[in-house]
């Protein structure tokens, strides 16, 4: 499946990797809920690492949509909260 790591790019990963990502994702969600910044940061880095190491980067001109989107690995707790907020960290497009 195609996975995008925000701020980094898109990768094609196999099901095994995808499964691993889901596990890490659950933990990351709990870390965010608990407000545990270092844990969140560690998990985001591990997710990005898993994709980078085991995935194949898509060509830049590829227009395929991603099946999963991972937040940036250097996202702070405050930024993470804003990212999922209504106002959002991502500005409205022009």
């Amino acid at each position, binding site marked *: 499946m195609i996975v995008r790591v925000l701020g980094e790019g898109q990768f094609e990963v196999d099901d095994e990797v995808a499964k691993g990502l889901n596990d890490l*994702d659950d933990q990351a969600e709990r870390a965010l809920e608990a407000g545990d910044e270092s844990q969140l940061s560690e998990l985001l880095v591990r997710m990005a690492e898993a994709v980078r190491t085991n995935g194949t980067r898509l060509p*830049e001109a590829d227009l395929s949509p991603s099946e*999963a*989107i991972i937040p*940036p690995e250097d996202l702070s707790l405050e930024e*993470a909260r804003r990212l999922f907020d209504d106002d959002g960290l991502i500005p409205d*497009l022009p």
Partner: protein
Amino acid sequence: MAGLMSRASLVVKSKFSKLLDHAEDPGETLDYSYEKQLELLQNVKRGIADVVTAKKRLELQETQLQQSLVKLDAQAREALAAGREDLARQALERKSGLQQQLQSLDEQTKQLEQQQEKLIASEKTLSAKVEAFRSQKETIKAQYSAAEAQVRIGEAATGIGEQMADTGLAIQRAKDKTEQMQARASAIDELTTSGALEDFTSDQTQLDRELGAIASKSQVDQELEQLKSELGPGEKQKELKQ
């Protein structure tokens, strides 16, 4: 609560889905989306320029602080040579304060550097995808019926829309960082001009004045000694006889 990945997907999709709803006609949707892509490319270029400007400002401040450090170091030596340990201590205390500022400026410059790199990479990817979208858009317009085109547009637009949201995020994060740095740089400027930290880059500080006084006194003493040795005891007598 859903995981972060699905929440991120939702956020990203909600950002560009508006672009797709904009026009009724598929051809129009494509043209409109393309227009927005070009606008975003301009935005990211501007974002890069802003980061570069902010970085230059920090670098200038760093250079000024470096110069102050060298000066304070020389002053501490001068003061100690003149037997004024109190002044030397003062100079070294200031030096240590400035060193801390310098270190944090250095870290901030590095962070801006990272933001700049990310923006450049994001611009490059967006640029490649926009180009791909442009040629795909012409193909879709030329070859497909309205109904078929709708499906094709959905795919292409989702792919590019994702990138647009991603680039938008990179621009926003760089902007936030730059603003934080600028606020900090202004705070350092303000501290130095208001005298709370003392303006180490100005020409004359109290330390300068005191050291200046010591220097001129020791120069006078030195010249006096030199004159005395030049004249010598014999010369002195001759001089007296004349």
